[in-house]
């Protein structure tokens, strides 16, 4: 990237449009950009194409058809899985943010000298394997698991609790834990950016602690909350591991079905159609939230 700049003056005389900034910038970005084109844009288009084809056992029929989408949107099982995925992801995201906001607020406003240590402590657990973390919740919540055996041992309960594993509750608990730092960090960054003198001004103008939070801190940190929402919501909708390990049959989500279509059920075009449908839904929700935030939170750029 250095040599390109060095040869510029001579080249620039002949091709004025190649001169300086633009040219160097494009040359520098091109390896990464071409990689993203080849391995992201093209494959996504391929999936779109694929979703309009059909599969007959091993043979792919390349006639253009809407059959897969018709099936994906009308079959009750797919409708159910899609709605459940949306519901679980939405609940998970809300729970995660509600749990995360106070801790981000605590670190930003009430920790003074060791802020980075706190952030460090919050992120450490997430450097262990995602798979193992999810699995450990199965160990904790299971019929003979840590929670039940401890409670029985302590004599709090006689029979093991069953409502905490192999259902949507377990999925929500596990995901809320798994995505915690992804919600805490954006909110923390947004809170850190708030000019502290604004709060003093609000206090000076007669606002108590609650009104101060409600009228100044919360609106100014909404950008972080929205970022947290998107960062947690989008990937959780497509999560495969958690529903599979702790969800039971009532907690299965759309990703499990997509995987099944590419695996055992062996209907890849239908799997592609399901994947594209899920992506469209997620994207429209993300855009909607983005737009709502712009529209209704004052002081946004």
């Amino acid at each position, binding site marked *: 990237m250095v040599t390109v700049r*060095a040869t510029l*003056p*001579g080249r*620039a005389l002949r091709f004025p449009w190649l001169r300086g900034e633009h040219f160097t910038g494009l040359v520098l970005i091109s390896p990464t950009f071409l990689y993203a084109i080849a391995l992201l844009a093209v494959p996504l288009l391929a999936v779109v194409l694929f979703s309009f084809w059909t599969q007959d056992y091993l043979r792919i029929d390349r006639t253009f058809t809407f059959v897969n989408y018709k099936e994906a949107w009308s079959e009750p099982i797919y409708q159910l899985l899609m709605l459940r995925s949306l519901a679980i992801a939405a609940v998970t995201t809300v729970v995660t943010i509600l749990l995360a906001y106070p801790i981000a607020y605590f670190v930003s406003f009430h920790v003074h000298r060791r802020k980075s240590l706190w952030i460090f402590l919050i992120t450490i657990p997430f450097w262990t394997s995602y798979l193992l973390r999810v699995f450990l919740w199965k160990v904790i919540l299971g019929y003979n698991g840590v929670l039940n055996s401890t409670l029985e041992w302590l004599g709090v309960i006689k029979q093991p609790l069953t409502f905490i594993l192999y259902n949507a509750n377990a999925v929500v608990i596990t995901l809320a834990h798994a995505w915690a730092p992804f919600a805490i960090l954006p909110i923390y960054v947004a809170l850190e950016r708030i000019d502290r003198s604004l709060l003093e001004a609000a206090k000076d103008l007669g606002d108590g602690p609650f009104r101060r939070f409600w009228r100044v801190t919360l609106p100014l940190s909404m950008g972080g909350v929205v970022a947290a929402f998107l960062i947690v919501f989008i990937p959780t909708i497509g999560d495969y591991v958690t529903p599979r390990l702790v969800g039971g049959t009532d907690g299965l989500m759309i990703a499990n079905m997509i995987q099944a279509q590419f695996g055992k059920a062996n209907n890849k075009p239908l799997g592609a159609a399901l994947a594209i449908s899920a992506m469209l839904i997620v994207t429209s929700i993300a855009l909607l939230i983005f737009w709502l935030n712009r529209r209704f939170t004052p002081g946004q750029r």
Partner: protein
Amino acid sequence: MIELRDVHKQFGPVEVLTGITADIREGEFFSLLGPSGCGKTTLLRLIGGFDEPTSGSISVDGRPMAGVPANRRPTNMVFQSYAIFPHFNVNENVGYGLRSQRIERAELDRRVAESLSMVGLEGLGTRAAHELSGGQRQRVALARALIMRPKVLLLDEPLSALDKKLRQQMEVELRHLQRAVGITFILVTHDQEEALIMSDRIAVMADGNIEQLSSPQELYSRPVSRRVAAFIGVMNFFDAQVLAEQSNGITLDVAAFGKVEVPRTQVPGKMNGSRATVGVRPEMLTLLFDESDVSERELIGEVVDVVYYGDMTYYEVRLPGVEKPATISMRNTAGRRVLSSGDKARVGWGTDSIVVFE
């Protein structure tokens, strides 16, 4: 020494320099002065080789600089941020440029020590970059550039990061340093006082071009336009009507002052049509406190505001027939009264103290 010929620079659709032509002499302290966005830093960077002009030519010491990168030019720069390499100590920073040349260790050490003493940093060679104060960083940047023995030293707002006291001290030191090393200094600044104090010649820039290029005294007393006059110090402006133009002078009817004959030397810029503006510096008007004080000409005005500065007092005085009050500065000498608002005041002036613009 440096010849700029019709230098243009365009960034995308924006024309930042619109055809600069100027000569900078060997061994002079030259300043590029102007408000932010006037193109002065761009011009300095073109001379240093950090950007190439869109058209026009720059030559240094008779050598055309087109296509010559910054590392091959006989110029060195003191950056606005000082650009002290944070991972090197003072010695390593100052010796950075020499180390890449094949120079003996002993010679290198000698020259590093020499340039450190030149800027008054003896014995601080092993300090880490982050242990330096703002003033010390600036001196390191100076030493690092001077050690290269450039033909031209470029200084990009070198004093803007310093506090007022240190800045005033450095203004004098830089001037002495330039005399001592005898090389051409080109300073970019937006601070007119800084430029006046240090420079041999000043180019006042506006909208990508040089508005006036002259000595500090000339710039202050004979600005060529209202814009230059307003940028350098304070000036009172009065509307005027051109009554007659002679070969050696001009006759005007000036608001409040009446009919005035002004010699050509006091009309530094171009004239156009019958309307003109007359400028008078605040210290060129005097308040006559006692009967015994006399002046070439006299006016009666009314004091509308008084600002007391300790050594000076600035009066806003309304003159007959002029809406905007004139600013008059008076030194507070022993026993001299300070007037208050509402007082009548006798204002003295002379024809040689005014300057005429378009």
